């Protein structure tokens, strides 16, 4: 086994089997997204005070996660891809939080 292509030597991040998502599963995702679109539109017409933006953004985030996991196949990808996606959103969150801390504290009580 002096083979150059020793399987153990392959710098493959992870041997994630290529997973094919079925049309049925895509249809379920499609239905879920439509359902939650209806809910978020309905919720917009109900006055819930500060809860309105929270609910709207919560539903949007849920829909985004569903799209990322199933339409974008992240659920079936290797750990490298999962970490890459998570790191991106995490970095974005950190940037938003830190910048907001700065802006909000500069104009404390003025908005």
């Amino acid at each position, binding site marked *: *086994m*002096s*083979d*150059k*292509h*020793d*399987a153990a030597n*392959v*710098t*493959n*991040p*992870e*041997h*994630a089997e*290529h997973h*094919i*998502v*079925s*049309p049925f599963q*895509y*249809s379920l*995702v*499609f239905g879920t*997204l*439509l359902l939650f*679109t209806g809910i*978020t*539109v309905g*919720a*917009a*017409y109900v*006055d819930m005070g500060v809860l*309105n*933006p929270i609910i*709207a*953004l919560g*539903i*949007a985030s849920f829909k*985004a996660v569903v*799209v*990322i996991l*199933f*339409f*974008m*196949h992240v659920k079936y990808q*290797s750990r*490298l*891809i999962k970490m*890459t*996606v998570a*790191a*991106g959103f995490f*970095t*974005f969150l950190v*940037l*938003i939080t830190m*910048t*907001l801390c700065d802006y*909000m504290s500069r104009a404390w009580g003025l*908005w």
Partner: protein
Amino acid sequence: MTHPHTHETAVPAEHHHVALPQHRHHFETEEQQREAGSFGMWLFLLTEIMFFGGMFFAYLLYRNWYYDAFVVASNQLSIPLGATNTVILIGSGFFMALGVWAAEVKKKGLLVLFLILTTLLGVAFLGIKGVEYHEKWEKHHIPGAHFDVSEFVNPHAYGLHEEPLSPDMAQKTQIFFFLYFAMTGMHAFHMIIGIVLLFWLTWRAHAGDFSKGYVAPIENFGLYWHFVDIVWLFLFPLLYLINRHPL
């Protein structure tokens, strides 16, 4: 993962386990090539998150700053049109996902069909967006020299059930509309690029390029298209929904 250890040392080993002509020699396996492709595509999409994120952040900040102006200006947008567009976009994402499936199971006809349906819904989205933009144009709600604040200073004269804004605050509705056009405009621009790419991919799919086991371009374009969908999933509630008054 097992490799066939059948090749002789005299033969360049790199070219031995090649099953597909598109397998590049610098990748050990096709899986690795595919993984590298997805990884690269995701890195690009992360830069897009940062790019759109900057605009989302500006929106967040100015909404806090000029809240009253944002409420009134946001109520100028049509929820029925926005919701219709959301459904259209989710539908186009659904057909794109089915397109990826069709490529994976090597069904050429279905792949071409799904790509065309994705394109049609994308064009429909842009059409409705155009109708919305046109309405803003007619009402002089495009920021700039011709911007008209009278509707916001004196809403009752226009039959609107809004709180009148001071002339100062009414000017700030321009910031909402500027962000509205910047964010939806950049989103629409991404869709136009996507539709151009879809024409090209449909052409290649028709030629049979993606129905023999080589699906990376379809898969990676799918990631791009779904990402653009996700941006809209946030634009819709932020611009159309969260300031809505109960009817």
